[in-house]
């Protein structure tokens, strides 16, 4: 073990190297080789740390998502009147009252809807057998 290697290793290995080649004594490090508690460890072990669901801000409101009970269904109509009539409900957001900004798959299908025949989504399996055989 060379002295330079000993200095890079732990103090124990530096000690071993010292016995053989007596390198300069290992300088005590302030951080390397010492136990350093995380800056926020106290908050975390006391439960004081705040995660997003713990936050409550002035004027904050709560939302609830209603998901369909039918997979792969087509929405024909959503009657929100009873939900809107509930006390404390500020509003019900559906596809009707948000701006429509189609992105990737839905954009493709909305473009395809006017042309139709073969919708580009979902993609059909590629026919590459012929090419591979050749």
């Amino acid at each position: 073990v060379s002295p330079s290697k000993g200095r890079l290793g732990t103090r124990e290995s530096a000690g071993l190297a010292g016995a053989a080649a007596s390198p300069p004594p290992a300088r005590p490090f302030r951080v390397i080789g010492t136990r350093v508690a995380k800056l926020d460890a106290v908050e975390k072990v006391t439960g004081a740390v705040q995660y997003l669901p713990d936050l409550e801000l002035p004027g904050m409101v709560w939302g609830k998502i209603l998901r369909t009970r039918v997979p792969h269904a087509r929405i024909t109509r959503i009657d929100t009147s009873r939900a809107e009539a509930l006390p404390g409900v500020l509003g019900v957001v559906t596809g009707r009252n948000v701006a429509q900004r189609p992105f990737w798959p839905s954009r493709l299908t909305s473009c395809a809807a006017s042309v139709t025949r073969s919708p580009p989504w979902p993609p059909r399996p590629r026919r590459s057998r012929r090419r591979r055989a050749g």
Partner: protein
Amino acid sequence: MGDPVVVDRYPLELTVNGRRVRREVPGSRTLLECLRGDLRLTGTNLACDTGDCGACTVLVDGRPATACLILALDVDGAEVTTIEGLAARWHVRSHDRPPALHPVQQGFLEEGGAQCGFCTAGMIMAAAGLLEATPEPSEIEIRAGLEGNLCRCTGYVKIIRAVQLAAERMRVARREA
């Protein structure tokens, strides 16, 4: 149609972290919702909400329990300890003045048992409950005691070391007391 939904509420009385609390709660309210919502004790975390992860572990009458699976009214009258009240619990048992941290909390702090921290409160409560029932656990007993608590950061080794350190310190403290 359009009528407000009426939810029946029932009187609930708990001792939470040594403080007597009374609330009127719906029958469906879980102990976790009660702690986090009604009492604003957000140190106990909600993760899976199905009792799989252990993040919501608290002590109910001294024993670890997943608060998300317990209806508050089912433990009416119980003594509940959360991470916020754990240090004081250790104080009651062996010191004159309350320490800032329970030995298990101190162990997690020193051994790096907390990383993102989301499992930490539940993990610490499970460990504290374990050490009350089994003051000098073997490593296998520690692993068994924490098997209901999932941690995705630490790989558990530091957590087990933290509990071992805490067990050792508590043993010394008991001997000195």
